[in-house]
């Protein structure tokens, strides 16, 4: 990876972290409503994955989607404005935290029903297969989504129809508050892909360079072979499942232990050791992010509410 790209990935990860930290503050202040699920701790997964795609490759994910939106190229302004339910959000304030998307950035949402977007991902790939192009659909979901029927119908269809889908399971150990070992018959989730004779692997998700390399390889495989691939990525969310999580299901020592593998810290160390960047350069990136996020908050707060007549707009396309 070129130096500029590495610095860009560092920028993206810090941006996700700071957008969400500020988002959490705004949530506590009552300015953001509904459910909000933070990606903090998992930034390397989405950042590495999406860096490995071609612009024509599609991305679709679950409700933990702020980071994915930023990685796909949506601005901090649009993300923050959507969190605040403003007309300037990418979904015009009608979607909120869980429903971010951008057709222009080839980001197909932000879906809030666990597992529900997996058959839709198979459909994006069906559309591309029908159009006879070699676009790859990258579909991200949590470990919890692998226990629901949608998952199995989607994987079966993808393999049977040879659809170009890269399935990415972000195994962050818990589906809400229920651990993988309490919810899943198999402890290694990639084994479920074996049931569909789907090529698969399991990687660590705290080192963005490793995620990037694995994703590159997997996307290449999918594109060249017109065959789905299943990637299980081990990661951890440092915050609760959502903002209203009492966290009775895990001990703080466990969280602290994982925090030692902070993906931003790991990457910072990597960049310094490889002399890809100076501490000063990385500090400058962090300062730039700080300013960008401050501006995004200002932008979102100053943005107008959706117009009342927008309540009835866009129920139908025609």
């Amino acid at each position, binding site marked *: 990876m070129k130096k500029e790209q590495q610095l860009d990935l560092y920028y993206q990860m810090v941006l996700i972290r700071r957008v969400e930290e500020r988002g959490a503050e705004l949530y506590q202040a009552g300015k953001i409503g509904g459910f909000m699920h933070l990606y903090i701790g998992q930034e390397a997964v989405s950042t590495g994955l999406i860096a490995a795609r071609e612009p024509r490759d599609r991305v679709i994910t679950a409700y933990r989607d702020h980071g994915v939106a930023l990685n796909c190229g949506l601005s901090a302004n649009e993300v923050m404005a959507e969190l605040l339910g403003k007309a300037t959000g990418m979904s015009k304030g009608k979607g909120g935290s869980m429903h971010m998307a951008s057709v222009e950035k080839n980001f197909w949402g932000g879906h809030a*029903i666990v597992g529900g977007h*997996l058959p*839709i991902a198979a459909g994006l790939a069906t559309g*591309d297969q*029908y159009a006879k192009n070699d676009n790859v659909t990258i579909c991200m979901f949590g470990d919890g989504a692998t226990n629901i029927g949608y998952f199995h*119908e989607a994987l079966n269809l993808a393999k049977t129809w040879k659809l170009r889908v890269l399935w990415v399971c972000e195994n962050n150990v818990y589906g809400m508050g229920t651990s993988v070992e309490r919810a899943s018959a198999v402890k290694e989730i990639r084994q479920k892909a074996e049931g569909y004779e789907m090529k698969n692997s399991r990687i660590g998700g705290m080192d963005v360079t490793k995620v990037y390399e694995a994703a590159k390889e997997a996307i290449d495989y999918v594109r060249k072979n017109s065959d789905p691939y299943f990637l299980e990525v081990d990661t951890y969310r440092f915050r609760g499942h959502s903002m209203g999580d009492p966290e009775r299901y895990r001990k703080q020592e466990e969280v602290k232990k994982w925090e030692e593998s902070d993906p931003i810290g790991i990457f910072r160390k990597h960049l310094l050791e490889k002399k890809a960047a100076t501490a000063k350069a990385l500090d400058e990136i962090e300062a730039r992010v700080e300013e960008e996020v401050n501006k995004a908050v200002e932008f979102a707060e100053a943005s107008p509410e959706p117009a009342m007549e927008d309540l009835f707009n866009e*129920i139908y396309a025609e």
Partner: protein
Amino acid sequence: MAKITMREAISQALTEEMDRDPAVFIIGEEVGVWGGTYAVTKGFYDKYGPERIKDTPIAENAIIGAAIGAAMVGQRPIAELMTINFAFSAMDYVVNQAPKLHYMFGGQFMVPLVIRAVGGGGRQLGATHSQTPDAIFAHFPGLKVVSPGTPEDAKGLLKSAIRSNDPILFIEHATMYQIRGDVPDEEYLIPIGKSKVQREGKDVTIVTYCKGLELSMKAADELSNAGIEVEIVDLRTLRPLDMEPVLESFKKTNRAVVVEEGWKSYGVGSEIVSRIYEEAFDYVDAPILRVTQKEVPLPYNRTLEQAALPQVPDIVAAVKEVLK
């Protein structure tokens, strides 16, 4: 004009639109090699090939979910549900995904999807395969629900549905594929969301659709012999609901009966009657009655099943009742 069956009308709409637009494809269980479980897509597989006539696993979430995804990226899939009862397996997609995607993402996504589903009782298929749950689906803003009662309407409405950029549930009736009707020889479209007066009369307004139309037309002949002229308004589309022809007719007759095959509680009739009371209360001369299915899961036994379904004599009796 040519007299063709409902099956032929639907089949013609599909082929005409597939020939017109290469983005249109069909996806569903047994739509291809088998030829469609109701033979609507018979011969399609040979004509269009496996890419455009996609046989799927028996997996309704995969069928409707994949159709939604393909529609989002610009294709125009027609997903077939072998029966509307299987829509319950894919309920999340039919009511909670397809109708929400355009609105929830601020208009960014379009879902030009048609879901064809076969509903209705009368074929001794037992309680889980015989339902007429149309009202449930019509409850959801964002979905359009169309259910024609004549071959002409079926063809024209289905062609419009395929060209529409919105998700549309197109409900056909399992016992109506053999009914015949005149269909124009030239190409035509019928707009979605328009009710139609199918028979003119002055005494009582019958509001109905789909199977109810077939039964009501028979009842109308019988009533006419007894000197009672009913006006039949066919809803054709349940959402968006076009009440204008209903209200116009009611203001003339001041009496109405609603005929539907679904259950009475929380049904299509409940909606129609409420709207008439809300919008034409001053014109009401008699309580508005509903002719519906009995409130039971449909039994297998033919006699019992027919006793549970609305019949022509029920309509005749209801019309006479509102004239008392």
